[in-house]
């Protein structure tokens, strides 16, 4: 299995009570709560953590994009990727991803990814996402056109990377007299494309058909397994067998000395992540048109956005793995076999977890977990004959 160190870069000094009072850490949570001096410290801590991940032997570091929120301080992930490009010497740099529909000029994304791919001499992984609902409030992009714009921007970027320019492009949402971005990507024909999603059948289908690596974010392991199975089925329909390397599970792992100590240490910081940083009203998460009516009704009925979750619940449903080294190894092996993935995108820092604890966790993951999984591939339970 491959291990990537996934960083959200939360503003860990956020006043959790103020977030609770506002109802969310997103869009309407005033930036007057941001202290630039503390923020600057965090940027440096987090950049150093990702450089440390490279030194510890992680296969890659992952960044992502969120706007107008204390949840993550990476509205422009390319700034962070650029800051890491020369000090992360060996690991891949995965931007998971850029939210295509939010921009009015997708060629800027083709350009920034191509620059990063050149500077890292081909170590870039190019993630494409639609962005969660809150981004549509923050950017003004119309959620009712999210899917159309994603598809169109994707096609344009891939063409801009693979066809010699200049050429003219006229779509519904984007029009260019000249498409001719310099530089061209370092990797041929272009950097690997990864598609992170919270789980939408149409996205899984779309990614499988194009052989793109699919990353499942923030879900119970049973749901992860379901979407990965769908991916394999869709690949089969498209005439090929999907490899486990095309399936990446985005998780949170905390390794302590013992199970008890691990749970005690991780609890406040992980609960800060899910119950404060991540919380938002349904209207913010699912603006109209962002998803089809059936999914909208399902999410509303489940009332998922308002729920407070304890670490015990997150562990029980397999959203996170927290424990002593032995427990973490057991759980990870169990989940790998259950869902059939061969890439783990692991948050070692989360919520309010302080620098020293995050680094200790990274070290523990690198020393106690990584070596046991290096050569390990998913071992699916034998299929029941009737299925």
């Amino acid at each position, binding site marked *: 299995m491959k291990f990537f160190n996934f960083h959200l870069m939360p503003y860990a000094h956020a006043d959790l009570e103020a977030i609770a009072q506002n109802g969310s850490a997103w869009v309407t949570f005033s930036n007057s709560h941001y202290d630039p001096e503390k923020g600057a410290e965090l940027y440096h801590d987090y950049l150093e953590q990702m450089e440390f991940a490279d030194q510890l032997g992680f296969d890659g570091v992952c960044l992502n994009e969120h706007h107008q929120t204390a949840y993550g301080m990476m509205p422009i992930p390319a700034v962070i990727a650029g800051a890491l490009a020369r000090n992360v010497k060996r690991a891949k740099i995965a931007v998971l991803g850029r939210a295509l529909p939010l921009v009015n000029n997708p060629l800027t994304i083709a350009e920034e990814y191509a620059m990063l791919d050149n500077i890292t001499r081909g170590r870039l992984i190019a993630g494409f996402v639609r962005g969660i609902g809150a981004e549509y409030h923050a950017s003004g992009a119309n959620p009712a056109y999210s899917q159309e714009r994603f598809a169109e921007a994707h096609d344009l970027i891939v063409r801009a990377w693979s066809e010699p320019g200049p050429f003219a492009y006229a779509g519904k949402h984007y029009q260019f007299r000249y498409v001719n971005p310099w530089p061209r990507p370092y990797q041929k024909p272009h950097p690997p494309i990864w598609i992170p999603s919270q789980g939408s059948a149409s996205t899984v289908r779309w990614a499988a058909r194009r052989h793109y690596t699919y990353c499942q974010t923030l879900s119970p392991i049973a749901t992860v397994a379901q979407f990965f199975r769908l991916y394999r089925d869709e690949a089969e329909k498209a005439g090929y067998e999907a490899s486990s390397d095309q399936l990446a599970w985005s998780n949170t792992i905390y390794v302590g000395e013992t199970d008890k100590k691990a749970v005690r240490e991780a609890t406040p910081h992980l609960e800060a992540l899910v119950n404060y940083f991540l919380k938002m009203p349904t209207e913010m998460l699912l*603006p109209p048109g962002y998803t089809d009516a059936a999914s909208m009704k399902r999410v509303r009925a489940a009332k998922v956005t308002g729920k407070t979750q304890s670490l015990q619940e997150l562990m029980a449903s397999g959203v996170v793995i927290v424990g002593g080294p032995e427990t973490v190894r057991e759980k990870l092996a169990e989940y790998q076999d259950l869902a059939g993935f061969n890439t783990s995108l692991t948050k070692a820092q989360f919520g309010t977890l302080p620098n020293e604890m995050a680094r200790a966790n990274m070290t523990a993951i690198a020393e106690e977990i990584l070596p046991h999984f290096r050569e390990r591939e998913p071992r699916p339970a034998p299929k029941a004959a009737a299925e």
Partner: protein
Amino acid sequence: MAADNSTSPITVRGCRIRLMRGGAGDPLLFLHGASGASWLPFLQALAKRFNVIAPEHPGFGESDTPDWLDSVHDLAYFYLDLIEQLDLERVHLVGSSLGGWVAAELAVRSTQRIASLTLAGAAGLFVPGVEQMDPFLRSEEQRLRDLFYDRKKADEFVTRATHADYEETALKNHTTAAKLAWQPRSHDPHLHKWLHRINVPTLLVWGDNDRMFPKDHALTYARFIPDAQVVIVPACGHVPHIEQPAAFVAAIENFIGARPQAKKTA
């Protein structure tokens, strides 16, 4: 005479929509707001004097969602087509909120078949410094309550409109509303440049306590539309036709009755 109403579909250039009609007299075309179309008491009252035509917009309720529907401009052209197809002359055009914006865009394009224009709590303009509720960050129930000044009237409306049967329609309506009004938020930055073209008598009916498009929006419309008349309805929110139907109907009847039916000369 009790004015009855009937509902039947109509297809305009391949787009099938639901059309409610009632009464007899001069044609009055009512364009509904983002919360949807229904035959409300004020339409029943207007039907005593007018041939009331109340379509459900493309993209709303039972009407088709055509591929070409991307902006309020598309709806304005669609209704010009509908007026031509029904061969309506001297239409009293009335629009509320989103429908008011459509009506203004329509009138800017052509008043050839329009006798008068009434905008109620109309969207369409941006007024600097005026606070507006953001319907897209409100739950469905909050959104309906925001329409009203009187809490009891809001309660009644919410009870009727949040019925489970209505969920599908509400989602569809809200999605189309987002398509048309998300960005720029509920306005067209170019509309004000062309409002001077509206050369028919224009009435602006606004709730004194409108929190969605406060009455400053009425005053701004009045600045750009020549000789527009403003009526502010007291103790009333964003939907005077629903919250104060008697005052709303009276305002329209006074306005149309008092006005010479001839077009103004430009």
